[in-house]
């Protein structure tokens, strides 16, 4: 995978996967595209010197998000709900995932990154530590704190929807 053709192949093969991480880190599909494009532009300029491009792009995206968060601390835009995505299941799942998405956005970016790498990218604690440049103990403590914060934020299952018993008006 060397040269421009190799980079193109990498982008086409991995883009959707990397976009998923970017989305969970950034919180909106628009911002995720921007973060990922920025990271890939950096990777393109160093392409022949990168051993593990997926890990490299992930690291860049995490660093970009952390620095963005520092610059915009206190005025981070909260996305109200997941702006796009399928909902093939019941409304309680939808509401729970929206709550999760919102809770994820309240976490410090490094903690958010630990949870995304650990539970979305399925990396081991050691791999997460290597990727973030910290110790395994730090990964464990951040994951533990992050999960605890999520528990605090996530609401109990919502009550049964009133829509089941409400009459539907006629449309004219």
């Amino acid at each position, binding site marked *: 995978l060397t040269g421009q053709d190799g*980079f*193109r192949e990498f*982008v*086409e093969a991995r*883009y*959707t996967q990397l*976009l*998923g991480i970017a*989305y*969970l880190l950034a919180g909106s*599909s628009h911002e995720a*595209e921007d973060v990922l*494009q920025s990271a*890939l*532009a950096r990777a*393109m*300029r160093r392409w022949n010197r990168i051993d593990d491009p997926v890990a490299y792009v992930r690291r860049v995206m995490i660093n970009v998000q952390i620095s963005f968060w*520092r*610059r915009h601390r*206190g*005025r*981070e*835009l*909260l996305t*109200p*709900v997941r*702006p*796009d*995505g*399928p*909902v*093939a*299941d019941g*409304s309680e*799942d*939808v*509401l*729970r*995932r*929206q709550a*999760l*998405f*919102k809770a994820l956005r309240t976490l410090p970016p490094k903690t958010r990154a630990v*949870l995304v790498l650990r*539970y*979305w990218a*399925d990396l081991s604690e050691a791999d997460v530590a290597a990727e973030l440049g910290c110790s395994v103990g730090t990964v464990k403590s951040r994951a533990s704190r992050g*999960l605890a914060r*999520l528990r605090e934020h996530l609401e109990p299952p*919502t*009550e049964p*929807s*009133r*829509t089941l018993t*409400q*009459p539907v*008006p*006629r*449309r*004219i």
Partner: protein
Amino acid sequence: MIDERLRDDLRALTDALRPVPDPFERVQLRVRRDRWRRIAGAMAGTLAALMLLALVPLLRPSGGAPPARPSGPDIERLREWQQRLLASPARGALAKDKAFTDALIAATYAEGEKLQPFPPRGGTARVLFADDVGSLRVAAISYEINGQDPSLMWYVADRGASPEHLGRAFDPNTEVTAQGGSVYDPFIRLALNTRSDKPENLLYFGLAPDGCTVATAPLPAASAWTDAPTGSYVVRAAADHHPEWWRVTCGKTVRYRGPMPDEPRLGAGPPSAAELATATARTRGTVPPNLSGLVNDSLASTLTLRSSVVSGPPQVLWADLVAEGNGLPHSPTVILAAPAVGGGWFGEVHSMVTDKAGKTDLAQSQFFTESDPFDPVSILVIPVGRENDNVLVITPPGVAAVVTGAGPVPVDVMDIPLGTIIGPITSDTPLVRGVDRNGKVVATGKLLRSDNGQANQVNAWAEP
């Protein structure tokens, strides 16, 4: 428990993400666009100077072929105003120093030849503005090449910088944070931010054609207008910045009236219990408990209702499930409203809509009303839907049915707490009457108009 299902939920959250087309080509384009900044940034580093250059193509987007010129009488009028702007005498204390402006233009050309073919030789360069503002020295130069629409570049350096430094130094982190108007808007409005975490480096500009008068009025009322002492332009540094509206009068005609370029007032995050109590103090009806999350998110995320077009914080007008009909699930919906600068109210509808495929998406629409929507006895007829092709009707207590148009076509709302969607209601049948169980008309309402915050603003450059 959470960690057990976290993996599944995270995957579900990203399952349907679809990339914007042509990701590789977009990366290539970004790398090309970054090249100028990277090279210039490296040059600035070797100069060991704290000069900053904002490279901001304003009147014409950078990169790629120049856009096709639009045409038509409106565009011709805008172009005439644009030419008046470009032909205006340079503004700012330094702009009158011809030795300074000549040296500045020469520096930008010299730097362009070293780094990238911009600005190319053979065109016309005009300094539109040059002055010290706060801790910075700022210049705006327009470049017109081969009859193409001009490009405007902003150069920003430390206060007192020489023209040579101003024209060649560069900070890749400088960016435009807000910019008003279109490429043909003759009133240039923008905010520059060096992104250096130094709030003193925020600058706000409004530059109108010579002969026009710029006035400013502080929010929240934006009614006490004061002519800018600088005449046809206004500059605000962070130190003297406060939210305000700007107005441009040319002759006796107000050509522009609206908010200064600024970011929405974000950062409040989810409302506190006290803020939520205030925001729901006048809510019509009762907010169902399972909609509290959407209420909080809507309050935290609304942009228009926290921008400089409103004079007060957003309030919850109404929240409930809305019947979509056609067998679709009911949509959790929150309606916010805030008083508009200049009078009236802006409203925003946030609705979680599920389509036939089971996909849920957030639908938003905005409206304007001249009367108080919180009046508990009024009927609100709010345009909703992607094409504003339906209306959401909110009725006061005691209304058993609503009737639209000349031919009474009642919609049964007797068992619906407050809201329902009916439609379409066209402009030919704007009146909605609410009748009680005996058929007596007890309230009326008109179809409100869609508006994304433009009401009370003026942008009349294209008018004769």
